[in-house]
């Protein structure tokens, strides 16, 4: 039976099979772009912000199962959070929300954290310019 002896937790596989918030966002308030082709993971994360609260998040990811699952999870976690709260999301909290990742895959959760931080920085930079 495939999946019984999975490398990943059931939760990771669930997010991998049915990733949430996939796709590009029209007119995002912030875009995070991290990763590189050499290590095989590239994440793009988009956020929409209203009154200092992240009201929507989407992603596009080229990468392994863990990269897709962490992207999916982090976009779920940030929705409804204030910028300050979102900045507190670490790679560990993403991994824990997925019931853990194999040690060799922890770098994927780091990438998810970086993608989020980079999207928020992009938002803050843009809003400063406008303001």
């Amino acid at each position: 039976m495939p999946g019984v002896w999975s490398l990943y937790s059931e939760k990771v596989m669930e997010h991998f099979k049915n990733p949430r918030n996939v796709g590009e966002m029209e007119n995002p308030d912030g875009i995070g772009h991290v990763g590189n082709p050499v290590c095989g993971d590239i994440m793009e994360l988009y956020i929409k912000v209203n009154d200092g609260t992240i009201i929507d998040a989407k992603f596009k990811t080229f990468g392994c199962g863990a990269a897709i699952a962490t992207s999916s999870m982090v976009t779920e976690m940030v929705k409804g959070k204030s910028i300050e709260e979102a900045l507190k999301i670490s790679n560990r909290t993403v991994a824990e929300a997925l019931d853990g990742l194999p040690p060799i895959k922890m770098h994927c959760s780091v990438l998810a954290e970086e993608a989020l931080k980079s999207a928020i920085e992009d938002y803050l930079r843009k809003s400063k310019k406008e303001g």
Partner: protein
Amino acid sequence: MRRIYLDHAATTPTHPEVVKAMLPYFTGAFGNPSSIYSYGQEARAVIEEARAKVAELIYARSEEIVFTSGGTEADNFALEGIAYANEHKGNHIITTSIEHHAVLEACKFLERRGFRITYLPVDGYGLVDPQAVKKAITTKTILISVMHANNEVGTIEPIGEISKIAREVGICFHTDAVQTVGHIPVNVDELGVDMLSVSAHKFYGPKGVGALYIRKGTRLVPFMHGGEQEKRRRAGTENVPAIVGFGRAAELARQEMSKEAERLTNLRDKLIKGLLEQIDHIRLNGHPTKRLPNNVNVSVDFVEGESMLLNLDLEGICASTGSACSSSSLEPSHVLLALGLSPEQAHGSLRFSLGKENTEEDMGRVLKVLPGIVAKLRAMSPLLKTPRTVKGGPPLNPPYLAKDDRKG
């Protein structure tokens, strides 16, 4: 759901006949071949029978076969054995950039101990140029090691041409034939090799046993130190059941190989054709004809290998990838990079290696599910703005440009 196993280059299921042959040597005739009582002597006799069968498969003489714990030990033994036996003559070894890690890591080990290694490049198909081997030879060269066929892309190397060059200058020549023995004809004299590595579990034999063919007159420093087994060339109590199984697998391979190779080549070409027809932006890796009968390796643009594998696994299909998201280095396959693929293409590679149990229906199943998997993953790929899998339709948007290139 029936599981479709398409990773025979990694390992094969042990043939039931092989298991049957092995069983008596676990509990009944379990004696140590070095013991003089009949239990031991029986074990010794069956080892010699197995040795003859392995020798026959590669057209060697029995006394030229040394049993090892597998392909890795055979490779390590060949390289280190020759290097240390010839230290006084020279310190230069020629190999290729697409060897298995069992050769490459042994080379790196020797490099740290003062040996100099030339890693020859390959062309876009993964072929080694015999003339490049010739040019790399120096007065200090003591060994040339070029694999018979590559385990990832299936390219079969011109071993005969290379060995001729080695012979002209009297340099010892080794080939790692782990992927070819039992699958295509291997004849040590036609290949002109002095040493050749074999692994049993790659052709329906048990794991944990292999052999190094050592041409008579080739001097190696032993790799394992201890008892006087294998004529002092490999210490350690012989793995009798595994050796017996290895012999039986060799015997079966001799009987079935040519028909099976023809059948698999046919399936292989059907799968390759189907994949290239049904999926857009896909390329065949390796040589189209100088290729193992059971190897299909493709790179699918804009998607990553592990995520394709996981999806295939959910459909009950076992395959492999050159993406190395699970390895500590994170760098993709050294073989695919040596063929000139970009890191993205290497990460997007899939290897299907066929075997005995596979049927035309299995190929059909892969062709049925893979396009959908690719479409799903391309829809979430930041490398692609217009996901598309099936051929035809509007042209794809240019692939994603790396950050540094996104100017203007």
